[in-house]
Structure formats: C-alpha cells, structure tokens
C-alpha cells in the first residue's frame, strides 16, 4: 500500500494543536471525557508517526510539505512555510508520540490530585504540537515559533500545581528560557540579514558559498547558547533540577523524556550538521559541552536525596552522553548518540512515571523516607528496576547497547579521554541508581507504609508499556530494524549540509 505522506504529514501538528484548543472547552464537569479524548489523540499520534516512518521508507528520501500549498520564488529564494520529513524527524516524531501516549495514560488517574484537568490536557497537547512542529520544520523562524509554543506551555505546566515550589521553579525556568529565546531570535535575525534566507536548506547552501564569517559565527554562538539552555547542557543547566521535579510526574516524564531533546538537542544537531556543517572545531565544542554535562550531572546526582531531583540531574548527565557521541561526527558516533537519545527518552520517562507512582501512594519524594516499597507495589518496583538497569547500562537492556556503542565510537575516533569519562560516569550512574533501588524499593518496609497499595491499572499499564519498550529497544540494532529506523536518522545528519540541501532542494521546486 502506498502511503500519501503529503496528505497526512500536517496532521502531526494539526491533531495536537486542534485538541489543545478543544480540550479546555470541556470545562470542569466532563473530566472523564477529557481523559478519553486526550488518550485517543495521543494514541492516534502514535499510529500516525509509525505510518509516517513506514511511508518515508517506501518513498526512500525526504518529503517536503508546503503549508497551505503556498510558496513564492523571488530573487532565487523560495519563500513559504515548509515541513520536512526525513529519517531523523521521523524517529523524533515516534519518540514524542510514544512518550506522550504513556504520559496521558498515566495522567488519567495521577491528575486526580489536581483540579483543572481539561486545561492541563489543553496545555499538554499544545506542548506536543510545539515539539512535533519543531522536529518537522525546515525553516529557522518556524523552528523558533514552535520552540516557543512548546516552551511557553511547559512553563505553565511546571507551575501547574500553583504551590510555592512549583511557582518558584517555573519562574526561574521562564526567565532563563525567555533570555535563551531572545538569543535564538537575535541569531536568526543575524542569519537572515547576512544570507537573506530562512529556509534551512537554502541557508546552508548560501553559507557554503559565502563561507563562514564573523557574523555567522556570532549567530552560531548565540544559537548554541540559546539552544543549550533549552537542552540543559552544563553551563546552562541551572533551571532543570528545579523545574523537572516540581512539575506533575507525567509532565516531568515529558520534559525530561522528550522536551529537552526535541527543542534542545534536536535543534542543536540540525543546525550544526545541516546548516553550518560539522567541522572538527564545532565537534570539539559539542564534545566538551557533552562531557561537562555528563560529569557535572552525574556527580551532582550522587548526592541527591530527592527521587525526582536525582532523576533530573541524571537527565543532564545522559544528555551529555548524547551530545558527546554526536559531536564525534563519525557515522558510528552519530548512530550511537541517536540510539542513546531514543533509549533515554524511554527509560527516563519510565523512571519519572515510577517516581510519580510512588509519590501518588506515599506522598513523598524523599528517598530516606521510603523503604521496602517493592513488597507493596510490585509492578512499580519491577518497572523501576528495569528502568534503573537500563539507564545504568546492564546488559540485556537498551541502555547497555547504546552506552557500549558510544564508548566504542569514542575509542574508534581515537578520543581515549572522552571514552574514559564515559566509562567512569557510567559506573557513577550505576551507583546512584543502586542507591535509589536500595532506599526506595528494597530493604525493610517502614511501618508507616503498611497500608500502601499498588497504583491504579492505567498507571501500571503505562509503566509496563515503557518497561517492555526498554527491553525491546535493544532490537533496534538488529540488521533489519537498524536500516529502517536508526540508519536513516544517522544519514540525515551525516550527509551534512550538502546532502540535506540536495535532498530538500530537489523537493523545494517540485513538492506541493
């Protein structure tokens, strides 16, 4: 069956955007209806993203869709709003959809503690629309617009509980995010002033023709700083350990699982590889940023006593792995980085959901106060064990394969120092997740938790779904699947400026 991508591609943005405006209208009475509608929407997005992934394979290359079928060519530049679906975008779409489906499934009972559920789902959908738009767009300014849609709704979602901590964390996040956005917009303006194009493919082409000059270097630095804040790379990470734990658990899962990747890491690697083109210096900058994040995040996570705060620091550390591997710029390095990115989306959202499940039943996030909960909450305990094993890199789980690949890629590129850091931090990761397991789920059951029960069925379902994926994702390295999922994503980056521009430019004239 031939899949018509041109028809269904805009739905990836239209469904969540539309639902984002419909759901808040349901008001206070119809909360169950809001649950059902939100879950249906995310489930349909999962189907849609898988169809798009398969359809893109049938088509072979990338697909370009023009919004409203409108474009105009003037002075050799094509103007119009376009969406580009290539291997990397397709992979990111699937990740965003799967994690958001698990999160909405979890939310339907978890959000019983909060009021204003239809508004919550409305913001949630807007955030998904922003992320989907961000990974699909082929245009610098639209990247900024979608990035802001995702970011603004995430500021509001972090503050959703309206308690002191949440408001404080959200305000901090908002100020840093807003400064970052100003830098991003300023650098986009600089790029437009110099090259007269906003389309990423054309921008890359002109940049290759005219060469990188001082102005575009300044723009690159501001872009890296701005997007670095969104991705929480180390010198810019201060907001993350406050914002991620303060949000409701399904939102923490979304923020740590996909938001920092879709609007941070994805945007950075797209700009670096497909607009500026990877150079050894740029790669070195990414590797240093990545290694710093890896070390600082890992070391700070060791001394956290708060379950979700520990997970937040661990996110910084794992994002460091991704950026380090992609910064290597070798085919194996990029493959390993993207694989780890995909795996991290799954296991980190799983871990945040289990922490939410514990908080739902016991009302605490402090590891010292828990103990022996695995006896009372077997499903939560086991899924959390799977997640911890994956993130620490224990063999049968997905995290092992991606970390191994990252280390092999570092060694193959002759970067022994970076490989050593990756190994050491991997051991540190194991140490702090053993601490989580020991304090929270094993050991002696405390008397005050004698009445604790397992969480409701829908919450269990979403955790089990992600835990199964943790094991199944290892299969992505099997030859058949690797060529279908990971290698197209790798090639989208590895082909660099020229390849991207060739793929997209041939379609710029014809698509529509």
């Amino acid at each position: 069956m031939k899949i018509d991508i041109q028809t269904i591609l805009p739905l990836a943005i239209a469904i969540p955007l539309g639902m984002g405006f419909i759901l808040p209208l349901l008001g206070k009475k119809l909360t169950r209806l809001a649950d059902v509608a939100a879950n249906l929407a995310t489930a349909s997005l999962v189907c849609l993203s898988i169809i798009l992934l398969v359809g893109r394979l049938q088509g072979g290359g990338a697909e370009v869709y023009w919004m409203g079928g409108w474009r105009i060519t003037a002075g050799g530049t094509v103007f119009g709003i376009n969406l580009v679906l290539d291997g990397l975008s397709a992979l990111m779409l699937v990740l965003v959809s799967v994690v958001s489906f698990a999160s909405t499934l979890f939310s339907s009972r978890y959000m019983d503690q909060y009021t204003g559920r239809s508004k919550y789902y409305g913001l949630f959908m807007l955030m998904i629309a922003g992320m989907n738009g961000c990974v699909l767009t082929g245009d610098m300014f639209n990247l900024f617009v979608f990035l802001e849609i995702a970011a603004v709704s995430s500021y509001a979602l972090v503050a959703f509980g309206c308690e002191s901590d949440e408001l404080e964390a959200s305000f901090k996040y908002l100020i840093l995010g807003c400064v970052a956005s100003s830098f991003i917009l300023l650098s986009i303006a600089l790029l437009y002033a110099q090259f007269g194009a906003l389309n990423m493919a054309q921008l890359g082409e002109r940049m290759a023709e005219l060469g990188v000059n001082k102005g575009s270097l300044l723009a690159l630095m501001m872009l890296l700083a701005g997007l670095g804040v969104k991705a929480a790379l180390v010198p810019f990470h201060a907001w993350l350990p406050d914002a991620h734990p303060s949000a409701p658990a399904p939102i923490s899962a979304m923020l740590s699982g996909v938001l920092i990747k879709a609007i941070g890491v994805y945007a950075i690697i797209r700009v670096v590889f497909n607009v500026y083109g990877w150079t050894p210096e740029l790669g070195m900058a990414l590797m240093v940023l990545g290694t710093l994040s890896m070390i600082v995040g890992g070391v700070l996570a060791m001394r956290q006593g708060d379950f979700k705060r520990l997970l937040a620091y661990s996110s910084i550390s794992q994002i460091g792995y991704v950026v380090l591997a992609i910064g290597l710029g070798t085919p194996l390095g990029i493959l390993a980085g993207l694989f780890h990115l995909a795996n991290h989306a799954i296991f980190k959202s799983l871990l945040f959901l289990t922490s939410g499940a514990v908080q739902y039943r016991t009302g605490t996030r402090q590891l010292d106060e828990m103990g022996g909960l695995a006896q009372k909450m077997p499903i939560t305990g086991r899924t959390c064990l799977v997640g911890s094993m994956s993130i620490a890199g224990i063999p049968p789980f997905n995290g092992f394969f991606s970390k191994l690949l990252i280390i092999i890629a570092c060694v193959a590129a002759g970067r022994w120092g970076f490989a050593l850091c990756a190994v050491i931090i991997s051991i540190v990761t194991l140490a702090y997740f053993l601490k989580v397991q020991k304090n929270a789920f094993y050991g002696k059951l405390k008397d005050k938790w004698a009445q604790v029960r397992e969480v409701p069925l829908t919450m269990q379902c979403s955790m089990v779904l992600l835990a199964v994926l943790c094991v199944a994702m290892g299969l992505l390295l099997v030859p058949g699947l690797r060529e279908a999922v990971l290698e197209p994503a790798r090639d989208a980056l590895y082909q660099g400026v020229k390849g991207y521009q060739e793929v997209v430019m041939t379609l710029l004239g014809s698509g529509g």
Partner: protein
Amino acid sequence: MIYVLCLILFLVGLYGVLSQKNLIKLIIGLGIMEYAVNMFLIMVGYRKDGKAPIMESGTGLDKFLSGAVDPLPQAMVLTAIVINLAVLALAIAIAMRLYQKYGTYDITEIRRLRG
C-alpha cells in the same frame, strides 16, 4: 551605528535581567531585551526610501522587489510580538502568584529550592 544602539538596548535588558532583585523589574528587563530584538529585525528589512510592502495590482514582482522594504522581517516581528505577549503575560501571572505565596517580590527571599 543604529545597529550598535540596538545592541546596547539588548545589553541594557540583559543587565536588567541579571542584576535586578525585584521580580517586576526583572520582567521589564525581559521586555526590553525583546524590544531590542524586534527592532533589530525591523532594521534588517529596512531600505532607504523604501515603500510600504503592499503589492498593487499591475505592478510586476521585479518592480515590487526593487522598490519596497523587505516584508518578511515585518511578518516575523508580528509573530514575535505575539509570542512575547504570551510569555510576558505568563511571567506576570506567575509573579502575582509568587507574591501571594511569599509576600514579597524580592528574589533573594524566594529561595526554597536548593541543591
């Protein structure tokens, strides 16, 4: 020259964000930064003696391109203004709720999260 003024305005805003202790002044700093960026965008599209970018019937595309100012940055600024409006409204709303919880606008006193 005027670009330098724009950069100075941006830095004034950044200084405000970094140095002020009052939540409201911080938000004003953010606003100044955003104005500076918007002004820069408008200046990117400016051309001396340019006409308003409205295409009348009968004018060819070439004539339009040679006479009018660049309309694209103007469209971008409109979008950016709308986004800034949303962000500032949210920031002010959160600042109000913070005042209700902590009874102060001073960020040095709003410090519950640490580590």
